[in-house]
């Protein structure tokens, strides 16, 4: 094992631990603000993992859409639906032993499936830049989903504006 791979592994474990810890905080933290900013850690570490997996376009898209878009939306929603003067907003959770047991069983099943993967794994050798392949694919093989998605986005835009606007009193 070369030094290069050891370094990659260290980066991988750093990112993975950040992601795990942050998602744990999202699940259990009792402070609303901390919860929202823990999600930031999850999103960034996942973006880093995409980078490590050579999905460079996904890396940029994750940060651009999730961090710059969705997370900001979520934080705005928290600000608009709470009395924000208080920093320590509580975020109740109704945990019970049943829930924990079910989630643990789910996790065990998923890990079992992951560990019993067949041995057909090989490294993906791309000779072209990924962005170019994605661009070509969007306009050839996955043209239909692309178009449907654009219509869906338009519908969401209009729907969100309609839902969030103030009621006009007749």
């Amino acid at each position, binding site marked *: *094992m070369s030094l290069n*791979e050891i370094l*990659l*592994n260290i980066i*991988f474990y750093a990112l*993975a631990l950040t*992601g*795990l810890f942050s*998602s*744990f905080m*999202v*699940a259990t933290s009792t402070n609303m603000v901390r*919860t929202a900013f823990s*999600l930031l850690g999850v*999103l960034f570490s*996942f973006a880093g*993992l995409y980078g490590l*997996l*050579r*999905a460079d*376009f*996904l890396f940029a*898209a*994750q940060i651009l*859409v*999730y961090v710059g*878009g969705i997370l900001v939306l*979520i934080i705005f*929603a*928290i600000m608009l*639906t709470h009395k924000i003067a208080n920093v320590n907003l509580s*975020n*109740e*959770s*109704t945990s*019970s032993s049943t*829930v924990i047991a079910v*989630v*643990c069983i*789910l996790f065990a099943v*998923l890990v079992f*499936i*992951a*560990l019993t*993967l067949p041995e*057909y*794994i*090989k*490294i*993906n*050798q791309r000779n072209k830049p990924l962005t170019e392949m994605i661009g070509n694919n969007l306009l050839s*093989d*996955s043209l239909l989903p692309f178009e449907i*998605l654009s219509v869906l986005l338009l519908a*969401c835009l209009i*729907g*969100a504006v*309609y*839902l*969030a606007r103030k009621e006009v009193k007749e």
Partner: protein
Amino acid sequence: MLWFTKYPVENLLILSSAVFCFGIYTIVTRKNAVSILMGVELVLNSVNLNFITFSQFVDNAGISGNMVAIFVIVLAAAEASVALAIILGIYQNFGRVDVDKLTSLRN
């Protein structure tokens, strides 16, 4: 499964399943609607990580996994915007966003 490997497939899968479980836990236990949305985002992210892992390590020539991940990200953006619009509407009508208190269809 190896702890130090060039192809950390299982490690990535276990990570994503852990995050998936945290997401499910968040969705089930939280009362606040915005927090539930965060749980959904966790689940979507873990699924994305799985898709990209398989795209990198299994799908040798194509980029189908990446394409699906892109569509998931776009759908997540759409879903988040609509969900937050609904949450804002609920807040305007009821004055609170705790899902266990929202038992009536009209105020």
